[in-house]
């Protein structure tokens, strides 16, 4: 139970915001103008208490597995055990009495998980393209009986394709050209080549995927409601309509409290929701389908592995004259969001550097492995890993400092990107770089450590090797290209007696959506933060605000809400909400996304303003390497982020710290071992994510340079923190004498890297 007095106290403090705000250290350098100004603002810039915070710390908040409905059945998915082939026969070796059994023939609508290509069946009919592909669904009131049901499937196998590089099945290619890359190479003094590889990564939200489907009482025109853990209720809504052949109003999707997403609950919930819905539709009873950890890891999407080739022309003093970049992503068995992941990948492939002559070729291909999909960063961690390690190698080759080469080439306001986007005043690559270098004493520290690395300085070789490295990255906020225009997202604000209620489809998945949106609305209306309520993300009530992805929830949806609040404030005039409601009745304001007037994008040519704007960041990692075990231990992590103005500094900092830890896992620990198309380490015992003992102390800084089209100057923050750690780690390893071009940097790879570096 929530104690009433605790709740009361928290409300009071949320209202005043002062006590908790004063106790947290300043997250922005003290000379920053914005921080000073923010003290005058009512809610924005303050660390108000998270809307659902009390419920989370008392364990009273309900996640999907905490919910139950009368007469509810439990469900299980029968999956393929082969990577490629055909289903020849299915035998049910159990007493089917009391079971609900669904296969592809039970699908009332189209057998697809509707997304972009509609190539992925909800249930395999005949062809199988990957291990763990769903074939059959079972439901039963008793979980033990359900678990003991034995299903045997006979297949005719065909040779699987595991190599994305030679796969003839291409999901998408993208070409970006700027200037004349051959002329750029002719102008170069030195040309540097390099191949870089990144592995799969599992999102590893601590709450596994799960849903409950509840059918309406049977009738001529009954519908269905699906509750579940998800990022994008309207993706699920659309997929269910197509799968079940139902109109809009017969399908309702309600997000339940979600225990982490990281992209892993962007498109996958459409699959699991479809399965529960099919069983509920057939049985006429509520059906719960919650994966256990092993199933979640075996079957659901992961980050696309990548192979990125760079060929770069550079002058002797470090200026880039030509960048020729080839990006290959492994899409897995179905298209999912691969085309869009590739898009973000190639749009970030140059890193935050200016170059007049650029050629980028990207492709994502099919392999017989479980489909890869959305994961925080969405293609950019792969391509920027390659660029940042490559830039350090170029600096090494030229004998110049890694800071200097970045200073020379970093994008500045007024520069153009590979797509010809002219960058605005909020282009902060140099600021974040300089702040990070200054804060860490990077150059001095690097010299100190280098001295320790000179041959003969430690003849016994007992001390761990030490190195320090950095990365400079950028990340586009919002959907790619014309995506935001196509989405045409909407948000609503309803007037209440106390203040206002927010109605958006944007989901709270831990990042602080409810809190941050309520701050924007409170600030705009000039009312207390606690007078703003946030409705559940329920498609029966809220408009389609687009998906909760792409670092867009604050900058894009938050801005729409701000415009709703501006109009509400104008309508209220000098009346209180209560007076207005009495005089005029209910007031609901809905607004749609408006493209900033100067934004242009040509999707056919891949030219123009790829994103509304970009965030900028510089990460510095110092690490040590055990000479016996080759384990790498980061000992200090510093990150300087420029994300516009943080609406809630503590939440924004939480995004940076959490994303950085996830990025360090990507760099060092997290290896998905694929054996015969199957994840061989699909459990937490041997898929290792960072614990408290693997995560170094973090020094996080946010510079606030306001973006004029974001709410109160805010940009996106969610994804960028995961882009920088991996290249910073690998650059620190190079500094310590270990030449790696691949992550994760497991002890085995580090050991091999040392040998090759001493040979070269």
């Amino acid at each position, binding site marked *: 139970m929530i104690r009433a007095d605790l709740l009361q106290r928290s409300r009071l403090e949320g209202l005043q915001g002062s006590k908790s705000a004063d106790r947290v250290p300043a997250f922005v350098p003290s000379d920053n103008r914005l921080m000073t100004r923010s003290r005058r603002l009512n809610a924005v810039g303050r660390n108000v208490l998270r809307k659902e915070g009390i419920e989370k710390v008392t364990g009273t908040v309900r996640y999907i597995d905490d919910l139950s409905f009368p007469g509810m059945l439990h469900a299980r998915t029968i999956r393929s055990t082969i990577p490629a082939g055909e289903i020849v026969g299915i035998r049910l070796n159990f007493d089917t009495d009391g079971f609900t059994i669904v296969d592809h023939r039970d699908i009332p609508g189209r057998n697809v998980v509707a997304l972009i290509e509609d190539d992925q069946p909800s249930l395999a009919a005949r062809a199988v393209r990957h291990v763990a592909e769903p074939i059959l669904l079972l439901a039963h009131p008793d979980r033990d009986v359900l678990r003991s049901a034995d299903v045997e499937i006979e297949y005719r196998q065909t040779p699987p394709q595991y190599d994305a590089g030679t796969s003839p099945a291409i999901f998408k290619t993208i070409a970006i050209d700027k200037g004349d890359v051959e002329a750029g190479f002719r102008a170069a003094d030195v040309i540097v080549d390099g191949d870089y590889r990144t592995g799969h990564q599992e999102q590893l939200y601590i709450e596994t995927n799960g849903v409950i489907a509840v059918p309406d009482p049977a009738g001529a025109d009954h519908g269905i409601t699906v509750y579940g853990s998800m990022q994008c209720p309207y993706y699920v809504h659309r997929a269910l309509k197509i799968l079940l052949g139902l109109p809009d109003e017969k399908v309702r999707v309600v997000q339940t409290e979600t225990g982490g997403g990281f992209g892993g609950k962007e498109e996958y919930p459409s699959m699991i929701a479809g399965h529960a819905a099919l069983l509920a539709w057939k049985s006429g009873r509520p059906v719960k389908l919650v994966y256990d950890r092993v199933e979640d890891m075996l079957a659901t999407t992961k980050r696309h592995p990548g192979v990125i080739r760079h060929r770069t022309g550079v002058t002797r003093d470090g200026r880039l004259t030509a960048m020729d970049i080839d990006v290959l992503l492994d899409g897995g068995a179905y298209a999912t969001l691969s085309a869009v992941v590739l898009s973000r990948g190639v749009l970030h492939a140059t890193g935050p550097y200016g170059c007049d002559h650029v050629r980028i070729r990207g492709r994502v291909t099919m392999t017989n492995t479980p489909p890869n999909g959305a994961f925080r960063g969405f293609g950019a961690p792969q391509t920027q890993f390659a660029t940042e390690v490559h830039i350090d190698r170029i600096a090494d080759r030229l004998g110049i400092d890694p800071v200097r080469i970045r200073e020379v080439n970093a994008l500045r306001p007024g520069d153009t990107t590979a797509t010809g986007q002219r960058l605005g005043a909020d282009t902060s690559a140099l600021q974040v770089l300089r702040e990070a270098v200054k804060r860490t004493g990077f150059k001095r520290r690097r010299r100190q450590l280098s001295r320790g690395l000179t041959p003969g300085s430690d003849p016994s070789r007992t001390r761990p090797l030490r190195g320090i490295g950095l990365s400079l990255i950028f990340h586009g906020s919002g959907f790619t290209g014309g995506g935001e225009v196509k989405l045409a997202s909407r948000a609503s604000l309803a007037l209440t007696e106390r203040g206002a209620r927010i109605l958006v489809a944007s989901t709270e998945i*831990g990042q602080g959506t409810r809190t941050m949106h309520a701050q924007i609305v409170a600030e705009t209306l000039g009312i207390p933060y606690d007078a703003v309520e946030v409705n559940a993300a329920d498609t029966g009530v809220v408009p389609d605000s687009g998906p909760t992805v792409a670092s867009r929830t604050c900058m894009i949806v938050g801005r729409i809400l701000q415009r709703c609040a501006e109009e509400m404030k104008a309508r209220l005039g000098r009346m209180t909400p209560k007076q207005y409601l009495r005089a005029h009745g209910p007031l609901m304001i809905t607004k749609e996304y408006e493209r900033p007037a100067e934004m242009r994008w040509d999707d056919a040519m891949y030219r123009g303003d790829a994103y509304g704007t970009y965030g900028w960041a510089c990460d510095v990692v110092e690490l040590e390497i055990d000479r016996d075990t080759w384990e790498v231990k980061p000992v200090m992590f510093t990150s300087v982020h420029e994300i516009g103005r943080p609406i809630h500094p503590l939440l924004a900092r939480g995004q940076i710290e959490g994303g950085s830890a996830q990025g360090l896992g990507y760099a060092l620990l997290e290896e998905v071992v694929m054996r015969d198309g199957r994840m061989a380490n699909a459990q*937490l015992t041997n898929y290792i994510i960072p614990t408290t003992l693997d995560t170094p102390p*973090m020094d996080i800084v946010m510079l606030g340079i306001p973006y004029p089209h974001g709410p109160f100057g805010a940009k996106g923050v969610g994804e960028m923190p995961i882009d920088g750690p991996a290249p910073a780690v690998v650059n620190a390893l190079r500094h310590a004498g270990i030449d790696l071009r691949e992550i994760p940097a497991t002890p085995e790879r580090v050991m091999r890297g040392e040998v090759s570096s001493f040979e070269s």
Partner: protein
Amino acid sequence: MLNGRRTRLDVHPMKRLLDVLREECGLTGTKEGCGEGECGACTLLVDNRPVNSCLVPVAHVAGARVMTIEGLRGRHPLQRAFVEHGGAQCGICTPGMIMAAVAVGRKPALDQIRTGLAGNLCRCTGYEAIYRSVMRAR
């Protein structure tokens, strides 16, 4: 004793303590993250020591004092600190994390916190906000 109350249950002795709490006792604050004792989301206290309730058959706690997140009744200083200092993001690891932090004891040093929480995975925070919460709880 369950959360300070004498409790009698008629369940299969080999049923996981986690399932008994969630399904028989209606105490859903204790979460399952992995089912193999790796993630710590199901952490609770048995005789004041933290255990993974997904690995414990209920028979093992006969006669013992079991304390779950519900047993803190929203009164523990750690609970308030986790809200104030951003220690809870998505919240799914939070009950287990708080119970593990209770077992670390009062006024711990950072090293003690790191070691005491090493069996509890959090994917959202990078742990920094959790350290701040535990250190500032009072």
